[in-house]
């Protein structure tokens, strides 16, 4: 399933060669016919793809130029202050707060998932017993439906039914529920999110470790490299690319975080766990301020595009190197 690779020059030259061959040997295929055939296959899918993705995004941008609110449908066509929502973005303190919360959540989860993922990958790489079972166990958190992950942590964070609080109770400790205290709510989300996604970074890093050439390891051994030197100068450079891709994917996905926050805290207490995506959801479907929430979303989309371009650059840079 190799994607994202730019075509090599030889591959690009191939169609021409084979087309000439076909032209000479069979009577029914000419170059134009082939072109038309490919076009016939391509045009519908590109049209539908653009229709379901590009068109809605354009509509989103148009809506972001209006003061549209669901309580006043006529405002959908009011373009008298097209920059109004964008000016509001600059002064909305709750939005700025949400961006800060988003930054904290993203940095904490990505850093933890990278560290735990890396540690777990190095350990799993060395474990020889039942490797397949081991990998399957680690797969569980990341393939569960996100709503089920949210339910699981809701259970674990509810003192009256959680096994942890049963333990605390037995030990005579009085621990408040982490999701209801402003000091710990965001940490509670970080812990749940890290549990859900560290297997993802782990599996990517593990795949990279598997491709580490045996000769390199042996050569380093012969040269008397210590374990640390081995890790720093042999292993780390080899998996650098995998680390980068895993981190960027998690970073982008962390912007979409929703079910955990929706189920565990609803953005609260106060708004300490209200990340930008959740704030947008509240503005759009809680307060019905569609125009303004569209403007925030445009901001998020631009951010995601920048990060995606970075991924493509890294992957292609490596493919051509």
């Amino acid at each position, binding site marked *: 399933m190799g994607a994202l690779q730019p075509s090599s020059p030889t591959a690009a030259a191939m169609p021409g060669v084979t087309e000439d061959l076909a032209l000479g040997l069979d009577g029914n295929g000419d170059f134009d016919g082939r072109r038309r055939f490919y076009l016939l296959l391509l045009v519908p899918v590109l049209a539908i*793809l653009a229709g*379901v993705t590009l068109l809605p995004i354009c509509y989103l941008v148009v809506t972001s130029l209006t003061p549209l609110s669901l309580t006043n449908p006529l405002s959908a066509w009011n373009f008298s202050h097209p920059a109004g929502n964008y000016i509001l973005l600059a002064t909305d303190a709750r939005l700025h707060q949400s961006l800060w919360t988003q930054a904290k959540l993203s940095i904490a989860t990505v850093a933890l998932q990278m560290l735990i993922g890396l540690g777990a990958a190095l350990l799993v790489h060395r474990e020889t017993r039942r490797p397949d079972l081991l990998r399957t*166990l680690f797969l569980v958190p990341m393939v569960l439906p996100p709503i089920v992950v949210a339910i699981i942590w809701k259970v674990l964070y509810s003192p009256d039914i959680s096994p942890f609080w049963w333990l605390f109770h037995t030990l005579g400790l009085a621990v408040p529920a982490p999701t209801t205290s402003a000091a710990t709510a965001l940490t509670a989300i970080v812990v749940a999110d890290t549990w859900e996604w560290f297997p993802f970074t782990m599996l990517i890093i593990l795949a990279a470790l598997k491709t580490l050439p045996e000769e390199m390891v042996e050569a380093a051994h012969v040269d008397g490299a210590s374990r640390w030197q081995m890790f720093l100068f042999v292993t780390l450079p080899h998996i650098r690319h995998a680390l980068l891709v895993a981190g960027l994917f998690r970073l982008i996905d962390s912007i979409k975080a929703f079910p955990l926050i929706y189920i565990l805290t609803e953005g609260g207490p106060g708004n300490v766990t209200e990340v930008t995506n959740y704030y947008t959801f509240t503005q759009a479907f809680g307060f019905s301020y569609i125009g303004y929430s569209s403007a925030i979303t445009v901001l998020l989309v631009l951010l995601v595009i920048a990060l995606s371009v970075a991924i493509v650059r890294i992957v292609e840079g490596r493919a051509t190197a």
Partner: protein
Amino acid sequence: MTRDERGIGTAFVRIAVWSLALLAVLPFLWLVIMSFKTADDIFAGSSRLLFKPTLENYQGLFMPDFIRSFANSAITSLVSTTLALAIGAPGAYALARAARRQSRLVGMLILISRMVPPIAFTIPYFLVYRNIGLLDTRTGLILVYLTFNLSLVVWLMRGFFEGIPEALEEAARIDGASLWRTFVVIVLPLSAPALVTTAVLCFLYSWNDFFFALILTRSQAATAPVQVVNFMNYEGWEWGKIAAGGTLIMSPVLLLSIAMRRYLVSGMTAGAVK
């Protein structure tokens, strides 16, 4: 390093790695176990490690709303997956064979559309659906799932078709097969494993969706993930039903993921990682 030291190191790795694996599955197992407990046992907590398993939570799910939500999940996921494959696979083939240069631009657009936060699609779809009566319909959900399924199919299948040697197709052409026939008779059967993998991924993404269904459905077309959340609102928290519903929702996903675990990560990262 002496043999003893190495032995201790290996033992340490073994303990650490299996403890971590246990940490990954224990929270999930806790929910499954909870789904077989009576309300009494749930609130008695871990003090009753030994309990008499019951099916009453599952029996409690046998009501029209929940059954319908499960059917909605299955129908929307399956139909959207099928549509995405039927529309996307031929296009991916053409992209792989004819338009290698444009293919990069399309690839970039597809990657971006997969990365964009769902809210960017939900707002415009919500506005349009409100006007054309597609809110709270399965058709509406199936269409919106195409936003990620169609791009996933084009992306993954293009990569796969590029890997099939063209010589095979030329041989069929020389024997007088038309281009379409070559695609259907030669290329598609060769792609069966990739088609299945892609289909499973599409199914998983649709089945796991919560956000789109939360906003674009109310009751008639509500999917299982949305319906199970309702047990959290009405008449207090029905923990037993929540656990049983969660277990039912995750079982098909878990089975499919384990069956295709080798291809999961490369699919989830759209080929950026192999």
